[in-house]
């Protein structure tokens, strides 16, 4: 929803790249798209770090479970 509004604002102010103007050339007083506050940026970064950490953990978990399910004999005695 917020992204739709964002797009609409950009179109209305004629600041799309297709209009041949730089994104920062919006008239004074009109916001060019969405501007995050420093606090929002900080929180988004914290969420991104958390998601990355969870994904990294899952990769490790699936790897270890795969090794366990295969059994040490399969992993260590496989032909090179």
């Amino acid at each position: 929803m917020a992204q739709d509004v964002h797009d609409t604002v950009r179109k209305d102010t004629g600041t799309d790249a297709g209009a041949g103007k730089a994104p920062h050339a919006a008239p004074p007083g009109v916001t060019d798209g969405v501007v995050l506050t420093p606090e929002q940026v900080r929180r988004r970064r914290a969420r991104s770090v958390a998601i990355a950490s969870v994904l990294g953990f899952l990769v490790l978990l699936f790897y270890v479970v795969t090794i366990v399910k295969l059994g040490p004999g399969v992993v260590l005695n496989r032909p090179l």
Partner: protein
Amino acid sequence: MSDVSVGMTEKQALGLAPEAPGGLATPRDYIALLKPRVMSLVIFTALVGLVRAPDHVHPVIAFTAILCIAVGAGAAGALNMWWDADIDRVMTRTQSRPIPSGRVTPQEALAFGLTLSAFSVVVLGLLVNVLAGALLAFTIFFYVVVYTMWLKRSTPQNIVIGGLSGALPPMVAWAAASGSISLESVILVAIIFFWTPPHFWALSLYRADDYARAGVPMLPVTAGPDETRRQILLYTLFLVPLAMSPTFLGEAGLVYGAVSGVMGLGMLMAAIKVYRLRTGEEATKAAKKMFGFSILYLFLLFATLLAEALIGRI
């Protein structure tokens, strides 16, 4: 999930209705959506089911099973908060939760809960076994659809029937370890199932105004505090011998029998006190004491079962 927000002036200029801002949540808010305190009870009871199961599983598989059960329970909690956001806004106990406080939007909570539900069930089914995955799916479905969406707002028996979802984790863990369901896992479920009503009704006795304001038909709201006190006593009278039954059935040892007997006596005394003290500060104090003691009671029962199983394996 939306990471962007639009200033109110732009919204007003475009003739759009104001909406929740979104993008304000921290990882801590998403953890709060998982109801960590409920999750800790789920992890503990599931661990007991896993350890007491007759088959030994590899520690990595055991860890994966407990993780999936915990995440599944947390996901159910997030979906519960999504559905009950209107109630949570009214009740003082829940007003600071992530959705009523506006830090997480309902859409974000819904997406979070659905994703984690699907993920926990699929991973448990694929990495551990299908029976455990199916039981976890049933547990989540029962909590979200049967309890949260249907029973909670329609009947004072909401927590009696809905309590099954909170009771199932030891059985899920048992199934994860053994690939089957046995009498002992059923008893573990039954203990938590019959513990839930006196536990929650003790809480609802001194939170009745909150529940009434939110329109939740808890027993003290619909049948009155006196009937609630009677029901607490009746359920406790049934719970105490049931909790001792593992010893009589040969599933648990004498230490468990002694602990369940002594703690059961304490539980019974607390219930009698709640039944007898009906007015004033003393009545509230008795209900609060019973609520607190019931947590200790369940914890000690399962801790003893865990200890007996671990010592038996040494």
